């Protein structure tokens, strides 16, 4: 066993455990925390794969802000737990069986049969995933999509505000007018 493989095995184990933990935790807060750990661990993998910029973004955006948002909402709603009464009997079993079948299919045909078990990942070039390189690509070649994502975020912000406003007394501003029309 090579040290790299040991490291990968360790990281992979953590990834899987945290993922499973996220899914099976009864308490939503635990789930969120498991997911944060999961994201952080995956960020390590990005580092290994020579993508430091993405790794940082992963931690700051995903593990940071998004998960904070999750936690915030969980707290806000006080919805850590649900009244337990499963309506869909057999759903759990079926889901697991199908999941396993799916995994086998993916592993068998997507990974093993495709020959990826024998092709190594080439060592990353030092500058390949560096922030400058990503930045250059983003602001030159992908400038337009980049701007579009900005717009998407704007729209999402507006949408989120509109959705959470609730049924306030009518005021004269645009959003109220729009929401009334749609209502």
């Amino acid at each position, binding site marked *: 066993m090579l040290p790299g493989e040991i490291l990968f095995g360790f990281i992979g184990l953590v990834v899987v455990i945290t993922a499973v933990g996220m899914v099976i935790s009864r308490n939503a807060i635990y789930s969120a925390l498991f997911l944060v750990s999961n994201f952080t661990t995956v960020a390590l993998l990005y580092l290994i794969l020579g993508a430091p910029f993405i790794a940082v973004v992963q931690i700051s955006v995903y593990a940071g802000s998004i998960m904070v948002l999750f936690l915030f909402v969980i707290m806000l709603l006080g919805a850590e737990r649900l009244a337990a009464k499963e*309506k*869909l009997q057999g*759903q759990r079993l*079926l*889901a697991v069986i*199908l*999941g396993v*079948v*799916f995994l086998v*299919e*993916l592993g*068998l*045909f997507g990974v093993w*049969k495709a020959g990826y078990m024998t092709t190594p990942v080439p060592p990353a070039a030092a500058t390949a995933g560096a922030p400058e390189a990503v930045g250059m690509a983003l602001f030159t070649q992908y400038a337009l999509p980049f701007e579009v994502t900005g717009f998407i975020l704007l729209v999402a912000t507006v949408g989120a505000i509109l959705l959470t406003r609730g049924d306030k007394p009518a005021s004269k501003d645009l959003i109220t007018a729009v929401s009334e029309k749609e209502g």
Partner: protein
Amino acid sequence: MLLSETLQNPAVSLVPWVVFLPLIGLVINLVLGQRLGEKFVGAVASLAALAAFGVAVVLAVTLAGEPGVGKFHLLDWIQVGGLNLGWDFRVDTLSVTMMLVVAGVGSLIHIYATAYMHSDVRHNGDPSRYRRFFVYFNLFILAMMILVSADSYLMLFVGWEGVGLCSYLLIGFWFEKGADGTANAKAAKKAFVVNRVGDFGLLLAMFLLFWNFKSLSFDEIFAQAPALAQAAPGVVLAVTLFMLLGVAGKSAQLPLFVWLPDAMAGPTPVSALIHAATMVTAGVYLVARSSPLYLEVPAAQQAVMWVGALTALFAATIAVAQNDIKKVLAYSTISQLGFMVAAVGMTAYVAGMFHLITHAFFKALLFLSAGSVILGLEHGHAHSHNGHNGHEEDHFDPQDMRNMGGLQGRMKTTFWVYLIGALALAGIAPLSGFFSKDEILAAALHTSPAIFALLIAAAFLTAFYMGRQVFLVFFGRPRSTAAEHAVESPALITVPLILLALLSALGGALNLPKIYTLEHWLEHSLQHSLVVEFNLTVAVGSVLLALTAIALAWWLYGKRQMRASDPDPLAAPLGGLFRALQNKWWVDELYQAVIVRPYHALASWLSGPVDSTGIDGIANGLGQLTHWAAGSLRRIQTGYVRTYVLVVLFGVVLMLAFLAFN
């Protein structure tokens, strides 16, 4: 016609005016009549009819000068494919004769109606309809003129349907009156629908004509008729028989006569003009006009002849047992039309036309006099009820002969003209009816003894029921207070009556034996008419027979005094037969049971079970099926997102497996 030279006289171009003049009259009345009052309306309408008569006279004089066929093309009409039809008028002796009758008798009746309708609209409580009456009346003259002046079957058909429309309008003139308030409206509808059955025949005849002759104009068809009769006799037979159906409808022959008695719901001038003198004779005119076709197929002649003769007798029997003064005349009209149809069936076209003319005179006279009687009775009724129960609804029927009697003293003029008309109708020499009927009888004797027997029986019954009518109405003592107080009608009514009486008396002069004026006049149009020499035996015999019948009528009805409630003297001896006669042989009931009710049932069945439940049911059933299928399928939509995702995953797994194994 076939051999006649074309008439180039400029007078021919006057012929559209026989149509335009009534049109002008009716438009003036329509637009201005309301404002200008009754006198104006009556005058305009009568003048329009008179002017048309004037045109007809000019045409007649022209034709007398140079016999021939004049044609006038007014306007193109339907020109498509092989159809090439125009508004073409035809001036020949036959059409001009008809024009003279229509406009002449029509004018007299117009004048009569100006007075008659004046009191009729008041009696019926709606004076505003005075104008409407004359608009319809002029419209009728217009349509009838189109009918008789047409140069093609299609244009004839225009007039044919047009007069039917006028008949409808005028029968339903008092559309809210009659039994239950609906009887008049129903009678109008019946007349139109029954006529439509006849028109159906005429339409089919025209289709056959068109596809076999490639034309609908008289000359072209008649020119080819002999050739086609050689090549395809069946076609000509079919054409003539379909035409006979049209004739039966319009001229109220068996089996389509049922509408005419009901048509008496119209005001009396209508009965006189449309349902006695002119419109109903259109069928006779049609057969005479189509004589070149009928001459080719003896079988069709036979059919026409038998229909006519049977109708003559059949209707005469019914007339014997009727109590309504106008109903008697109506059945008499049917019967006399039967005489004419039988005559034209025997190819005695001139005799038929002759009887048509004289019948127009005396039957118009009889109807108008009957109208005068009715008016007199209405006045008498109003007079006798003045002061007491004037507003009370009573069921006095001024047309029921049982309420009359003894009118000869109170209505002298009416009595005398009525008597002349009745005698003319009964065929007493030397009145007009004698000559014309005699020609038909002579021709019948010449053609077929069976027909002769039918017709002579009908003639006997004719004299009998006219005798019965005259005795019931004018002789004896009044059988009601109304009859006691009846008053003579004003001059505007009696003057046309006197004129018509003169015509009825002297009309025979048109075609006196040995001289045959009408014969020579019409032979330009009707070359192959059967002419039978005056037969003295028949003439004397028929007069004697008629006198016997009148004597019998006197013995039954005139000899002793009757009361209004007495049963008819014939009821006891004839028993069930009399009831059958009184109920018109239950023909109406028969049609009701065989045609009307089954059609109604069929239509209800079609619209109910078939349309709503059946066809629409299938359509809606398809909708229901979709609805049901969707209802079953929608259960798949559990509403649980997780289930959907599971299904999606299942699909993904399957697809992956599919891709992998391929």
